[in-house]
């Protein structure tokens, strides 16, 4: 029903490769990722540690940690290749067109500047507002994200706020200049369950209010299923599956997705041993040939360890697997 129009893509990533310099070698952490986000759409990016999901987002914003670099690929935002953009242009984009919310609000917010100060800094960096006007806007934003006593809170420092509050401030910061895309990288992982519910609720409200597209990155499939319309699953730096969220989770076409879903404990599930995926995720730089998931896959065949699996499409659901059509619905 919600078909993203191919002509007006907001974000389009083609063949992204990101590597980390280690000595003389370039260790690949993202190995050929494609991603599309349409305006107003919520796309979930799912993966566990080592999947490369966070690096993809950071590469997009040119915020890779030292030693990291995009080695190839295109990042098209509103029709413009971000890799060609100057640092100045990227700075203008960040905050005003693309907002970002990180996992740990304590380290993402400047501990030495008040909440109001950080908000007005961002606002005035992208909009021609005077100090008073910016403060008023900041107060509105705090109220919007559900922070009680917003006027007093403007004077608070980040460490004086609880984790949930800080995350709300980060969301306020991220939407302060009305961006078209919000990148949320594990925004609720450090939060308690009840606070997490509040923040997820806020994200949904923000989406409705601002019409902003969201790239929601998380290892928590329940959350991703809750908020996204489309989902991309990553493993060991590659996309392994992508599709409409409920189609994908009801009938996954990639063994990793299927095995991962089995591991998620349900509240009403039976008691007993918890399913796991045997083995360990591959370490960067020590990647075997063929499909990276083959060593742990319960459907692997000899060719999986030798050749790269093909891309298989069916009903708008894409899986990178030789046996994508052999899946029995969970």
């Amino acid at each position, binding site marked *: 029903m919600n078909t993203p129009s191919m002509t007006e893509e907001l974000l389009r990533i083609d063949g992204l490769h990101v590597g980390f310099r280690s000595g003389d070698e370039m260790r690949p952490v993202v190995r050929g990722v494609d991603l599309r986000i349409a305006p107003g759409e919520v796309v979930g990016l799912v993966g566990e540690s080592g999947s490369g999901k966070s690096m993809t987002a950071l590469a997009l914003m040119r915020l890779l940690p030292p030693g990291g670099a995009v080695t190839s690929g295109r990042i098209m935002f509103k029709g413009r290749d971000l890799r060609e953009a100057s640092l100045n242009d990227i700075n203008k984009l960040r905050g005003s067109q693309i907002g970002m919310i990180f996992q740990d609000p304590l380290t993402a917010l400047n501990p030495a500047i008040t909440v109001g100060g950080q908000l007005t800094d961002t606002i005035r960096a992208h909009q021609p507002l005077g100090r008073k006007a910016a403060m008023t806007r900041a107060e509105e934003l705090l109220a919007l994200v559900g922070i009680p006593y917003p006027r007093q809170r403007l004077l608070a420092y980040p460490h004086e706020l*609880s984790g949930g509050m800080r995350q709300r401030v980060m969301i306020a910061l991220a939407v302060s200049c009305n961006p078209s895309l919000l990148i949320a990288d594990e925004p609720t992982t450090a939060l308690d369950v009840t606070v997490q519910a509040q923040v997820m609720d806020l994200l949904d409200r923000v989406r409705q209010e601002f019409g902003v597209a969201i790239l929601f990155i998380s290892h928590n499939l329940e959350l991703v299923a*809750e908020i996204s319309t489309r989902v991309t699953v990553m493993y060991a730096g590659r996309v392994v599956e992508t599709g409409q969220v409920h189609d994908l989770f009801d009938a996954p076409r990639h063994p990793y997705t299927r095995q991962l*879903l089995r591991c998620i*404990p349900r509240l009403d599930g039976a008691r007993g041993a918890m399913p*796991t995926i045997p083995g360990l995720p591959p370490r960067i730089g020590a990647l075997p040939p063929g499909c990276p998931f083959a060593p742990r896959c319960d459907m692997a065949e000899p060719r999986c360890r030798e050749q790269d699996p093909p891309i298989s499409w069916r009903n708008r659901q894409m899986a990178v697997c030789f046996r994508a059509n052999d899946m029995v619905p969970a």
Partner: protein
Amino acid sequence: MKADAPPLMMLQDLRKTYRLRRSAADRLKGVNRIVTAVDGVSLSIQRGSILGLVGESGCGKSTLAQILVGLLPPTSGTIAYDGASLAGLSGEAWRAYRRGVQMVFQDTASSLNPRKRIRTILMEAVTARGLAGKARAERVEALLGQVGLDLQLLDRYPHELSGGQRQRIGIARALAMEPSLLVADEPVSSLDVSLQGQIINLLRELNETLGLTIVLISHDLAVVARVCDSIAVMYAGRVVESGLPRQVLSAPAHPYTQALLEAVPRGLERRDRKRTVLPVEQGDTPGGCHFRRRCLHALAICAEVDPVLKATRQGQAAACLLQQPS
């Protein structure tokens, strides 16, 4: 697990308070700033069972864990281990308690000394237990086998291991003391979902084969539901509900437990989410019922009376005035 056997540990009205630094103004006014981390907890831990302790940050579960293993003394209340009150223990009896109650920590990186090899870490543990000579190396190898790890890990340093491997070493180290009770404080929170089961299943196995009593502290209700024989929900230093996981999680009696369950994300079930989101927590813990300011059903009386954990109809226990016939 026999319900009539005496509990392995009994906590009665346990309290732990901290004195905060006072400002000059406070001192002048004679105000004492006190934080109550554990506010009157009574629990009994049955031998051979797995107790799940659930709660969010600030509820006191970690403080309670530290009191259980003896790293923190309680401010008031009694703890009995194997029938004997801890307060009076000394000498051999104290050492027996020390050995008997061990802990596995949440952060695997800081729970192993980064400068020591795995072999050293385990050998130290085994030596502390009293073994000597050749018996130590044998025991270390046996322990590794018990937690499902390969011998080649012995020569490595903690940072060369994965999170899951480190956690298993933490468990092996605890097992070296031959404990009767293992307190596992958020043992899998920092691990990938696909790997959490490996640790949880290991704990289950140890419970089944060794009869090891386990207190599993977690914020993840689903994991607790899967594995625990009984569950206690904590809020603001108190146990607000306890009972069998099946009952507590399907028909929660306490409003906080209800809110907690509401908040758990269930996107995969695709329910139309009309979630009642809990109002934001504010200020210091109030008198009376600590939850009353956020409770949808709070009455005036909730501010005056401290609700006590009492049995409800189905056999769980809840600390809520609404559940108790007035």
